[in-house]
C-alpha cells in the first residue's frame, strides 16, 4: 500500500468512527451531575469539545488497531512485549470514549467508581509501564545501531 493510500485509509476510518461515536455517546450516556443539576450553558462548549476529543481518539485508536501491528512488529523486540505495547497504545486511545462516559453516568457511586478505577486507571498505569520498557528498549537499540 502506498504511503498516501495508507494515510488516506487511516484518516477516513478515524474520522468516520469519530463522527459516528460523538452523537452516539450523547444519545447513550446521560451525565448524572451532583444534586441532579443540569449542565450550565457556559459548560456546554467544553462538554462538546471533550466529546470531539473522545470520538477522534476512538477513531485514531481503531485505525491504529487495524494498521499498527505490522509497524510495531518491525521493532525486533520480543513478540510478547511488542504485543503488549501494541495493546497499550491502542488502549490509551480507545478507552476514553467509554471511560469518560462511565464516569459521567456513575455520579458518586463508590462501587462504580472503584470498578472504573481498576478497569481503566489501574490498567492504564500498567500499560504506561509496558510502554516505558518498550520505548526504552527500542530507542536504545536504535542508539546502539547508530554507534556501530
Amino acid at each position, binding site marked *: 500500500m502506498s504511503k498516501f493510500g495508507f494515510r488516506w485509509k487511516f484518516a477516513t476510518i478515524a474520522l468516520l468512527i469519530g463522527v459516528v461515536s460523538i452523537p452516539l455517546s450523547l444519545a447513550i450516556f446521560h451525565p448524572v451531575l451532583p444534586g441532579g443539576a443540569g449542565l450550565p450553558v457556559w459548560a456546554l462548549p467544553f462538554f462538546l469539545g471533550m466529546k470531539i*476529543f473522545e470520538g477522534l481518539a476512538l477513531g485514531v485508536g481503531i485505525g491504529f488497531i487495524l494498521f499498527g501491528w505490522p509497524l510495531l512488529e518491525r521493532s525486533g523486540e520480543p513478540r510478547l512485549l511488542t504485543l503488549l505495547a501494541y495493546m497499550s497504545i491502542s488502549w490509551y486511545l480507545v478507552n476514553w470514549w467509554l471511560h469518560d462516559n462511565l464516569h459521567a453516568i456513575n455520579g458518586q457511586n*463508590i462501587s462504580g467508581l472503584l470498578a472504573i478505577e481498576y478497569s481503566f486507571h489501574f490498567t492504564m498505569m500498567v500499560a504506561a509501564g509496558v510502554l516505558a520498557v518498550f*520505548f526504552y528498549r527500542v530507542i536504545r537499540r536504535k542508539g546502539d545501531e547508530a554507534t556501530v
Partner: protein
Amino acid sequence: MSRRVTQIAAQEDVRLKATVITLAVAAITFPLTFVLWPPEIPPYAPDAAQILGLGLVAAESLAMGGGVAFLILGYRALKRLPVAPPLAIAAYLGIGFYLINWWTHDHLHAVADMLDFNGWLQMTVALEYVFHAGMMVFGAVLALFFAKLLLATASTKRVDRGDAEAGEVAS
C-alpha cells in the same frame, strides 16, 4: 564478545537503578498521599472499598516512581538516538506523563468532589482537558512516533539490502 558483556552489564545496571528509583519515590509518595490529599474513597465506605482504595494509592505511587525513573534513565537513551526529532521528545514526555500523572490526577478529582457545584464543574472541566485530553493527544503522538521510527528502520534496511545485492551483482 566483550561488547556483548558490556551491554548485558549496562542493562542490569539500568534495571537496578530503575527499581531503586521507583521504590524510593513510591516509598515517599505513598505516605505523602494521606498528608496532602483528601481520601479518594470516603471514610464511611465499607472496609473492602477502603482496601481497594489503598491498592490504588499503592499503584499510583509505584507509577509515579516508575515515571521518575523513566524520565531520568530514558533521557540518556534518548540523547543517543541518531535522530532527535521533536516527535521523539514528545513521545518520551508522553510516556513520562502517562506514568506520573495518576497520583496528582486521581487526587485532584477527589479535591473537586469537595467543592460546591460550580467549583466542582469548573475544576472537572480543567482536569478533563489537562489530563484526559492530554493523554489522548499523547496516545496519537506515540502511535505516530513508533510508526515513523519503525517505518524508517524498515526502509533503511531495504536500502542496505539493496546496496548489498547491488555490490554482489557488481562483483
